């Protein structure tokens, strides 16, 4: 037989080399899994991003040499995030976490362009074969805060410093309001959206505005301790966001919602490592440990602490749900009937505020 290059030979050769490369792939399985993160703000924000990074560190500590994690901070929520994500994917990161709502389209795009990379988008709702979403039931924490605020407010007006009108924030506002109304039916919640997750000067000015308009308890959905510092200065109460911020406002800081991402990140990395990862919409809360309430300020009266503890226990046991009907929206329309509870699917895309929110 002569050794001319025939098509048959070529196809056989191609098939052989393909098989070889598959074998070679298995040889690389012992390399650590590269996990990538993109953060909206700086890890030094002591809030949202800091909590995610803490989770990343916990994952690395828990899984030892099996994972290697990299992060990129200060990635804007616009088209400029895509090149960063592409870069991470091309550098070999097989699991990428996008830690803010505004990375939704970029995450979808990344998942489409790199089918072998697993993408997990935080607080989003679009999924694909290799794109999952995860969220934390912060609104469970907001219900605790709302209960405290409803009981501690003497002026009957409490403030909510929001960032953008996205489902996560709307949920927070509604949970806060409903829980406060359960303690004080006439309570008013003033809402200011500052169109930023992180702008300390503007957060401070907005908190000052809320205080001037009569709010004596202010909760924030933005990431810096600036609103708390303002509360301390004015002698009113506030809550920390994403982390225990009591050192910034020892008198004003009542408690805080802490984001605990470590267990989730560890579980997901493990799933990718052993091949059991599936696109999911994970929404953990108090029960699974992603939401934690910081130690109470000793200035909080004992009965308020007891009520707050009751709400937490209720969430953990499943006996309490702040979104149980009847719930009426700002326009007066009934959205949830008596005896019903809001489903997760509705919570994830909510865009209306409950009655009592002044926005």
């Amino acid at each position, binding site marked *: 037989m002569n050794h001319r290059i025939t098509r048959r030979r070529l196809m056989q050769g191609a098939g052989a080399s393909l098989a070889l490369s598959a074998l070679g792939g298995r040889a690389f399985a012992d390399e650590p899994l590269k996990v990538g993160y993109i953060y909206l703000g*700086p890890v030094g924000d*002591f809030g949202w991003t800091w909590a995610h990074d803490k989770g990343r560190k916990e994952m690395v500590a828990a899984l030892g040499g099996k994972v290697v994690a990299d992060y990129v901070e*200060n990635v804007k929520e616009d088209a400029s995030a895509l090149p960063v994500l592409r870069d991470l994917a091309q550098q070999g990161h097989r699991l990428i976490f996008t830690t803010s709502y505004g990375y939704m389209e970029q995450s979808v795009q990344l998942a489409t362009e790199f089918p072998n990379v697993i993408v997990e988008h935080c607080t989003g709702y679009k999924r694909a074969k290799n794109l999952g979403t995860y969220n934390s039931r912060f609104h469970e924490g907001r219900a605790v805060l709302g209960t405290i605020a409803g009981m501690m407010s003497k002026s009957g007006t409490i403030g909510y410093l929001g960032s953008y009108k996205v489902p996560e924030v709307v949920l927070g506002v509604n949970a806060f309001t409903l829980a406060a109304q359960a303690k004080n039916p006439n309570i008013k919640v003033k809402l200011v959206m500052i169109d930023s997750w992180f*702008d300390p*000067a503007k957060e401070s*000015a907005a908190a*000052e505005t809320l205080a001037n308009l009569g709010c004596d308890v202010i909760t924030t959905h933005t990431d810096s301790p600036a609103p708390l510092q303002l509360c301390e200065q004015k002698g009113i109460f506030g809550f920390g966001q994403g982390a225990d911020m009591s050192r910034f406002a020892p008198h004003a800081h009542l408690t805080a919602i802490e984001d605990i991402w470590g267990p989730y990140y560890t579980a997901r990395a493990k799933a990718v490592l052993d091949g059991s990862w599936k696109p999911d919409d994970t929404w953990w809360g108090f029960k699974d440990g992603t939401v934690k309430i910081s130690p109470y300020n000793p200035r909080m009266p004992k009965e308020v602490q007891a009520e707050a503890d009751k709400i937490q226990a209720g969430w953990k046991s499943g006996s309490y749900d702040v979104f149980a009907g009847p719930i009426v929206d700002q326009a007066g329309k009934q959205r949830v009937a008596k005896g019903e509870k809001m489903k997760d699917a509705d919570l994830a895309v909510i865009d209306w505020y409950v009655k009592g929110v002044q926005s």
Partner: protein
Amino acid sequence: MSADFVISALVTIVGVSTPILLAATGELVVEKAGVLNLGVEGMMLIGAVTAFAVTLSTFNPWLGVACAAAAGLGSSLLFGLLVLWLGSNQVATGLALAIFGIGLSSLVGTSYVGMIIPRFTSIFPDALARDPFWRVVFGYSPLVYFALATIFGVGWLLKRTRPGLVLRAVGENDLSAHSIGYPVLPIRLAAVAFGGAMSGIAGSYFSMVITPLWAEQMTAGRGWIALALVVFGGWRAARLLSGAYFFGILMTLELYAKASGFSLLPSQFWAAMPYLAAVAVLAVISSREGRGGEAPACLGRPFLPNG
């Protein structure tokens, strides 16, 4: 609308306007001398982190402000050297300084995250500073009074003194000033240094008065607004002062409107405004026919005595 409400709103307005006023005052002097320094945002952040770090270590806020001024001055001298003696493009170098400042301040500031310093509040006695009515006059940080004194001083200096006249001459027609015998480049460098110091002090206002903490990019674009303010004020001190407070009123009104349930303008407009303003500034500067009548004639152009 009680008196207390109005006073509280005024206090907020002053707080919002002061850092912009400080930075814009410095930039006014720089541009009057014919130099365009776009690096205000970077210098402000360098000032902010320096003020925080020094105050944290020495517990002396005055030293903090002084060091912030020195740090801003130092960074502006770097710009001055490149632009005045090496003749590099002012727009590009200014932007590079802005980016450099953002990065350097973030790097230096990493170890200061999560720390706090006492707020640099009023030095007047509590009876005046916390009085429900008189706090609108006496309740501010010393930097507020410094800002007001400086803009009045700069306005007076530019309009009514000989050094001010020389500075303006250098900015309007550097070749004529040179032919008379004035040292154009040293005068411009002095102006740039002053602008840098003022930007540094403006930055210190963020990390010492508004929010006594350090956070990356905590000036959030106010430097660009200060740049725009100089242009919109027609390079005149009085208009700059009113412009700064006008901006403060707009921002505060927007917050009050939102908190009360309605919005003056779409909120995305406010988010875009610093960048729109920066673009507008550059457009105006680049077209001499536009508002060229008010801009210093040599603004942005290198000094070339030999042609």
